């Protein structure tokens, strides 16, 4: 098995790409990389396009190597990745919708983000065109006796994001679920192009509001890699503090939400209280409940409040006091366990194939956590465990969150104990850049690893930015997980994934 670095060496290395290598390769090497993905040697981290090229970020999990291979597409075509490696199918459909680059040999040629409403086709490509008059979208078929379809969405019954789910069921049992997403497509990558760093940071922080810290951090780290700037230590530690607080808030919300979808409102009420306490503490420590616009390239917009550290310590104590009883409650309530255990199973093989991150991957035996695997600062200096389970059901995804809450509480304390002093911001050296630079970052959000890739032009503006939400690699797994479950368990399964619509739709 060849190392990832050998493939990179075969191509024309792009010098100004940091911290991992990027190489422009020919179609043959591209196909070879696709083979390696299909055979399960490497994992697909991201696949994205620009006007006349496609890029693929690869991970060699065995040795922890990351690299990007790029293929120029002068004919607006590239050899399909999805044809041999299904996790790439939706990414390719999105590339065609946005840039007009055709994945040659692709099995699914339907549009994905484009619903025929934009007034133009290939909005980010070299030649945007007028849309076809009659736009239609065919759902996949399911054939057999006594099947019926249940179309759901884009507007759902609760306060959640929009998306369409097409169920085919026999009686109560789901035979096929097909997702249709793209309703919240805002054209973020288009808005990023030509944006100043300030504006681009705001956009990155609003790609998926629940992960605003993680997104801003991923974007900032990518920009900092491109500029080769060292961020002050205090900022690095405070960023991790915010990231863990964000994880706590979301995990509490999710655990409560999952139990609520199994009609166990008591857990929902108590987890809701803990979540609110976290958000209120975030507000007084960092000045914003969700901590939006706090992480910026170069460091932080503001330091932690004077009494922020004390408030966070009080918060950790409160959670430590209240949460164990809730965990016991979850564990001992058989009617609740009856709903979560054995429901919505993702097999370890599928999680590995899709390189599913976060609790989805870790509940199905995929031990990948960007904080551990890459050890970006300050995580290399923190003591924490990465929980992993093999069952892959709703219950396992709840337990991963429970253990991650315990780990995050410990990390919050460790960070507060060792928080360095000094400045929280250093200016980027924007003078005399003279050439385009590229940076990339992988950051562990609460949902999984978020990838940010950025090219900064000579004018210090964003020339191209791609943000890959963990949901891209998790959404397809719900379709597999729900098969042979009952329709009534879909909300439960869906909440246990809690994929992002906005982060996926961009």
């Amino acid at each position: 098995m060849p190392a990832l670095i050998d493939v990179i060496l075969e191509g024309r290395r792009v010098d100004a790409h940091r911290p991992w290598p990027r190489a422009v390769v020919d179609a043959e090497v591209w196909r070879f990389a696709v083979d390696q993905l299909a055979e399960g040697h490497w994992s697909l981290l991201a696949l994205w396009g620009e006007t006349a090229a496609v890029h693929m970020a690869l991970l060699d999990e065995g040795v922890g190597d990351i690299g990007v291979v790029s293929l120029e597409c002068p004919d607006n075509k590239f050899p399909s990745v999805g044809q041999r490696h299904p996790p790439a199918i939706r990414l390719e459909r999105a590339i065609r919708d946005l840039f007009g680059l055709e994945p040659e040999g692709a099995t699914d040629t339907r549009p994905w983000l484009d619903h025929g409403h934009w007034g133009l086709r290939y909005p980010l490509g070299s030649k945007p065109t007028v849309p076809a008059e009659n736009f239609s979208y065919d759902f996949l078929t399911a054939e057999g006796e006594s099947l019926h379809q249940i179309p759901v969405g884009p507007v759902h019954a609760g306060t959640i994001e929009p998306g369409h789910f097409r169920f085919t069921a026999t009686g109560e049992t789901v035979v096929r679920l097909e997702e249709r997403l793209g309703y919240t497509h805002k054209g973020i990558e288009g808005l990023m192009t030509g944006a100043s760093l300030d504006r681009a940071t705001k956009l990155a922080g609003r790609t998926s509001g629940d992960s605003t810290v993680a997104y801003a951090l991923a974007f900032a780290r990518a920009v900092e890699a491109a500029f080769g700037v060292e961020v002050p230590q205090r900022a690095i530690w405070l960023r991790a503090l915010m990231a863990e607080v964000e994880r706590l808030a979301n995990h509490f919300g999710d655990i409560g939400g999952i139990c609520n979808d199994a009609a166990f409102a008591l857990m929902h009420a108590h987890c809701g209280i803990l979540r609110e306490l976290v958000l209120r503490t975030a507000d007084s420590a960092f000045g914003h409940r969700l901590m939006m616009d706090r992480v910026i390239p170069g460091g932080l917009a503001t330091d932690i409040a004077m009494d922020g550290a004390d408030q966070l310590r009080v918060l950790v104590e409160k959670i430590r006091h209240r949460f164990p009883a809730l965990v016991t409650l979850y564990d001992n309530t058989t009617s609740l366990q009856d709903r979560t255990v054995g429901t919505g199973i993702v097999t370890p093989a599928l999680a590995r194939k899709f390189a599913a991150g976060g609790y989805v991957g870790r509940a199905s035996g995929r031990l990948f956590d960007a904080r551990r695997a890459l050890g970006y600062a300050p995580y290399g200096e923190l003591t924490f465990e990465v929980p992993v389970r093999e069952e892959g059901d709703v219950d396992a995804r709840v337990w991963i969150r429970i253990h991650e809450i315990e780990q995050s509480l410990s990390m919050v304390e460790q960070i507060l104990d060792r928080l360095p002093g000094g400045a929280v911001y250093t200016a980027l050296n924007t003078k005399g850049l003279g050439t385009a630079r590229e940076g990339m970052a992988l950051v562990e959000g609460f949902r999984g690893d978020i990838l940010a890739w950025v090219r900064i032009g000579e004018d210090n503006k964003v020339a191209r930015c791609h943000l890959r939400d963990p949901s891209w690699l998790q959404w397809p797994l719900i379709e597999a997980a729900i098969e042979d479950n009952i329709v009534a368990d879909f909300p439960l399964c869906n909440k246990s994934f809690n994929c992002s619509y906005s982060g996926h739709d961009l």
Partner: protein
Amino acid sequence: MRKILLECLIQPPVTEPAPPADESALAELAGQVDTAARGRLGRSLAIRHVDAGSCNGCELEIHALNNSFYDIERFGIRFVASPRHADVLLVTGPVTKNMREALARTYDAIPNPKWVVAVGGCALDGGCFAGSYAVVGGVSEVVPVDLHIPGCPPSPTDILKGLLALLQHLTTKMGAS
């Protein structure tokens, strides 16, 4: 479970107190919503929420209205699953072109009289997503808006204050006609 339930019975509720007014913003709002709603809407306001392309930040804060601290249902304000049961359409996000039709159809499905509340900076004018090929703009580009609640995202208290403002607005409008 019994221990937790028992503790809940003994301990004071976390729900922030309603009257007397002035104490906290929430308590102040509680009394006012009560009076105005009683007059106009039989002490009840049914809300249908639609995410027209939001980043999900506003949804998180709308969710928070249901937690024990804000407990919005004690004011007679509740979220309903069907637009047919709603008095108010609460819209978040810049309206994306892909969501324009779904938003318009949800609005049409709400029986009259109905009011539209646009929540968040994006719902006002598209926010930082304005000008994109995929975005229509603010909510008022698609359906008539009665009230904007600014913020990115607005806090649960801000949203509650906004809903109160809507009630006052309705009182004035109906009184004038």
